[in-house]
């Protein structure tokens, strides 16, 4: 890049400084020579960036604090063990055991991941390693569009298309884990596919070239060289997809059946943490409301754990 004049030698003080170039060596002294208006503008803009960045942090802290504070009476009103290890949920009888919902959330999430992750990773491999520019130009926007579909539309699709088919084949009303797996696995494909593709694209071309030079076929190159190299990135992608699945609410509420019972079969209605919170939030009070906040806190901890795992994995990846 051509060397630029330092700021102080430019006579046009209204010209916005190129932040990308000035920021690394940014010093107060360099600003002294520019006009006061520019100085104020600079400071104000930098402050604005900082405030924007802090909003996200504040948001997380405030929401977590809010949820936690609301959930604290749980220890007294319900009892922590009754809550976290209880298997009976009945608002009328003031029983607030959330094990059926934890099991439900896990069943729904793991199943969706088992179907959705291979689908998404193979899609990413196709886009990154196999597809020509034309195929890519069609498939990639389609996958991205999948991410933009509102979850209520997915839920509607599940209710009107998937559930009736499941009902005809397996009997029952068509609501349950199987229906949720099918719909959720499609929902998490874009998250996992896009992130996996990024991971694959970041593998240097030279590695592939070396593999081909050794006489490896494209498939051998993919599964012996490219996939292992991008492994951590793909696992990251899958975990983030898992986060999407476990937090998904609207679509799940519409198709999972919402029966507060323990998982008993793929076509038997069950309930998840998220769907139960939504069903109850509108009218709950007292210990019931506390239980819902407890469930929200639980979800928060689960997604925090998932993010933490991703951070740790990315870290080991960089070290290696």
């Amino acid at each position, binding site marked *: 890049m051509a060397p630029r004049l330092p700021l102080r030698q430019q006579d046009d003080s209204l010209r916005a400084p190129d932040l990308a170039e000035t920021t690394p060596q940014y010093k107060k002294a360099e600003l002294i020579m520019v006009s006061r208006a520019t100085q104020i503008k600079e400071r104000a803009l930098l402050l604005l960036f900082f405030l924007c960045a802090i909003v996200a942090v504040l948001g997380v802290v405030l929401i977590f604090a809010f949820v936690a504070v609301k959930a604290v009476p749980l220890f007294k009103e319900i009892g922590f063990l009754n809550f976290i290890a209880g298997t009976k949920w009945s608002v009328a009888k003031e029983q607030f055991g959330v094990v059926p919902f934890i099991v439900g959330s896990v069943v729904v999430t793991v199943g969706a991941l088992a179907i959705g992750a291979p689908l998404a990773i193979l899609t990413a491999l196709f886009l990154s390693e196999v597809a020509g520019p034309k195929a890519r130009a069609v498939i990639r926007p389609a996958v991205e569009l999948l991410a933009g579909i509102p979850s209520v539309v997915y839920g509607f699709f599940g209710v009107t298309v998937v559930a009736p088919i499941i*009902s005809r084949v397996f009997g029952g009303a068509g609501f349950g884990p199987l229906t949720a797996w099918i719909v959720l696995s499609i929902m998490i494909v874009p998250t996992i596919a896009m992130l996996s593709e990024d991971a694959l694209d970041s593998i240097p071309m030279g590695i592939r070239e070396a593999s081909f030079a050794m006489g490896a076929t494209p498939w051998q190159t993919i599964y012996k060289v490219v996939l292992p190299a991008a492994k951590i990135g793909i696992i990251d992608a899958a975990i983030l997809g898992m986060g999407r699945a476990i937090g998904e609410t609207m679509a799940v509420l519409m198709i999972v059946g919402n029966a507060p019972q323990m998982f008993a079969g793929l076509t038997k209605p069950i309930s998840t943490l998220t769907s139960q919170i939504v069903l109850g939030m509108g009218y709950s009070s007292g210990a019931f409301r506390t239980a819902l906040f407890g469930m929200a806190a639980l979800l928060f901890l689960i997604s925090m754990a998932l993010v933490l795992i991703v951070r740790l994995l990315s870290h080991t990846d960089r070290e290696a």
Partner: protein
Amino acid sequence: MVKMKGSILALLLVLALSLSGCTRGSTGIVVSGSTTVEPIAEVAGEDYHKAHPEVSVLVSGLGSSAGIEAVGITKTADIGTSSRSLKDEEKKLGLTVIPIAHDGIAVVVNPANTVTNLQLNDLRDIYAGKITNWNEVGGPDEPIVLVNRDESSGTRDAFTSFVMGDTPFSLDAVVLPGTGQVREVISRTKGAIGYISEGFVNKQVRALNINGIPPSPANIASNKYPLSRSLYFLARADISPEAQGYIDYVLSDAIQQGPVRDAGYLPVTGGER
């Protein structure tokens, strides 16, 4: 996600401010009680306020017992609302009981189902999970698919008190958050059974007779049909003219044929007791 929550909060704030703006400088009528009556009372209140800007109606849903207490004992409300008739001790309060709508809950099945009648105790056993096949109640050999409503539903509350009593619901029931969804699922599931307000029965589903009595408007209005109840307004003798005007408006065709029917209830043709 964070941003979304923020904008929802902002929206609520705006809403709260605009609502509080409405009540300024006018006579307020406080209507509190049954959550089942709340939506009708609220719509009627808004319409009444439009026609009579000097009167504003504040509606809250606390439950029938709290509503009766608010109008009869603590006198914090001008009008109490209830979805049940008064108990003996509540009758001593000397409140005027004004039925504003009749509500019947129809037990509905798939139109292809050959069962036409259920005894009330069989219905209870079905929803408790003790009867699991239609052939146990004179139907075809077809497993029963239970469809229930979520616990916030007033229809579920009413069904519980009419049918279940202290018997717990089977946990195996599909729980759906709306009448439309209940109809939809029953219409496409052969062995399904569910319950909805009588006013929402359409061709997608077929309503069963209970104890041999069909859920006809006449049977519901006379409480002959076992799953029927009335919704009431309750007022003290010293009721203000503004509150009386509001009650008359709720009993007029504008509300009876509009919001009352829209909610799936049957209109009353008027009348205090």
